[in-house]
């Protein structure tokens, strides 16, 4: 059975290739960065397994690795190489020759993922399911990427090392921005474990007049948005704000409808997520991927939508939660 772990090994192998290319170019610190980052993908399951069994040193070594990644991060990013007019002309000529055939491999990633997810229940090898039913989308995404790579090699008649070289080029351009989503999610867990959420919630409680339904609702909505901005994630904000304000004050004391409060409250947090560099995979990585001069360009483009939607959510909460 293909499990998500196998896809992780593939990611680990690709990161090792990135480390190897940097080693060849004598960019030692960048090579070290990608090598350390490959470890959680190659050994992750074993680390978690041993940690669950009470053996702590592998997880602690991984923790040291995280700190090392933080120190190496500044050296991991390579400036994108400027494209010469000659290279652009070659690309234009190739684009004309290959025409729409270039789209097929690119579309193989989303459509292949979709097809595999839909067919997963019927894909069987004897008794066992071919794709782990616990994580079908991510396993399918990994398989679709492989299929797309095969299709791309066929269409362009390039060699696999060329594809690895191109992947490495994009990886180097992304640099430490590629790591940011993972490291921020880690910070979310650390904040939860160290009681940051509880401390913030108790500050909010002390600041608002709890007799007023409107004051509680405003504190909850602004708190969700603000927390999502700080944590980069509405999921991290939700349990904190619900435990601090939502449940004791709005649901129990003022009689708000739990389903409405939970659902629209979460979406109010999403408005904050649109505004923060902490949500790196949505707001910072694309700015790098699209080579925007302003690292906050995507956030700027989202600002008016997020503010308008925040106002709409406030109104919806007020109208729907207290029927």
């Amino acid at each position: 059975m293909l499990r998500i772990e196998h896809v992780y090994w593939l990611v680990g192998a690709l990161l090792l290739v990135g480390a190897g290319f940097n080693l060849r170019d004598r960019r030692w610190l960048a090579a070290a960065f990608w090598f350390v980052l490959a470890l959680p993908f190659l050994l992750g399951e074993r680390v978690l397994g041993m940690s669950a069994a009470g053996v702590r040193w592998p997880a602690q070594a991984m923790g040291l690795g995280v700190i090392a990644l933080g120190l190496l991060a500044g050296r991991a990013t390579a400036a994108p190489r400027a494209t010469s007019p000659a290279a652009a002309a070659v690309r234009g000529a190739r684009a004309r020759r290959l025409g729409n055939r270039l789209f097929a491999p690119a579309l193989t990633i989303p459509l292949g993922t979709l097809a595999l997810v839909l067919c997963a229940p019927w894909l069987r090898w004897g008794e066992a399911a071919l794709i782990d039913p616990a994580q079908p989308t991510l396993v399918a995404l990994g398989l679709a990427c492989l299929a797309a790579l095969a299709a791309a090699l066929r269409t362009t008649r390039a060699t696999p090392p060329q594809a690895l070289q191109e992947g490495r080029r994009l990886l180097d351009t992304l640099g430490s921005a590629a790591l940011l989503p993972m490291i921020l999610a880690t910070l979310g867990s650390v904040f939860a474990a160290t009681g940051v959420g509880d401390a913030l919630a108790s500050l909010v409680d002390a600041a608002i007049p709890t007799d007023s339904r409107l004051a509680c609702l405003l504190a909850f909505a602004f708190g969700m948005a603000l927390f999502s901005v700080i944590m980069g994630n509405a999921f991290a904000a939700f349990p904190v704000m619900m435990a601090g304000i939502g449940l004791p004050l709005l649901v129990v004391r003022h009689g708000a409808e739990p389903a409405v409060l939970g659902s629209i409250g979460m979406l109010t947090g999403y408005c904050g997520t649109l505004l923060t560099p902490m949500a790196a995979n949505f707001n910072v990585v694309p700015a790098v991927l699209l080579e925007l001069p302003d690292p906050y360009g995507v956030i700027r483009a989202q600002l008016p939508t997020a503010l308008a939607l925040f106002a709409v959510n406030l109104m919806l909460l007020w109208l729907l939660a207290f029927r």
Partner: protein
Amino acid sequence: MNYWPLLGVAAVVIGFALKRNPVLIVVAAGVISALAAGMDLGDLLALLGTSFVSNRALLLFVLTLPVIGLLERYGLRERAQRWIAGFRRLSLARLLVSYLGVRQLLSMFGLIDLAGHAQTVRPLIAPMSEAAAERGGGALGDEERAKVRALAAATDNVGRFFGEDVFLAFGAVLLIQGFYERQGIHLEPLAIALWALPTALAAFAIHAVRIHLFQRALERRRGRGAAAQTADAAD
């Protein structure tokens, strides 16, 4: 109540304001907050390590990079631009509003990772948007090009965020349901998911209007630029 762990939050805010390397800021903030909470070094390292490993799904997108990089070297972006340029009537607004709608619908059915910044925006949607924006006005300036690309990325985010919560088996819905369940309040996931619909509709309407306004402002500015050029030529 121990308020000292909040120093970690302060570290994040100050670090981002000073524009230091974000990865370093985040690692430092975690260490500060853990030390302020009185955690010992062994626990801190184990916590960092296990949380880091548990969140590794967030780096899966790197698997798309060899394919996208190779296709780009062979002219994928140029081809996408030419293809869109062939549709005379497809404006920037129509392209992005359609993408927004499709993205929201797909997310509502749980197909969240089908599209995304690495999978669809960089290779397809961003170059197509540029081509659609250039129609009838010549090449975009650098600043305009960056704005068009940023809007394409923003459209992907809005479509994803305000579609996924309508999907029953999505993490957010299960998180909400699980939270109430532990507090003794039983809710059906469907009830939670349906209440995400009003916001989903509002998100589509608001962002679609903004895309149209963006296109109009872009056309007006470029129209003026073109008129100025003609006037220069007449002189």
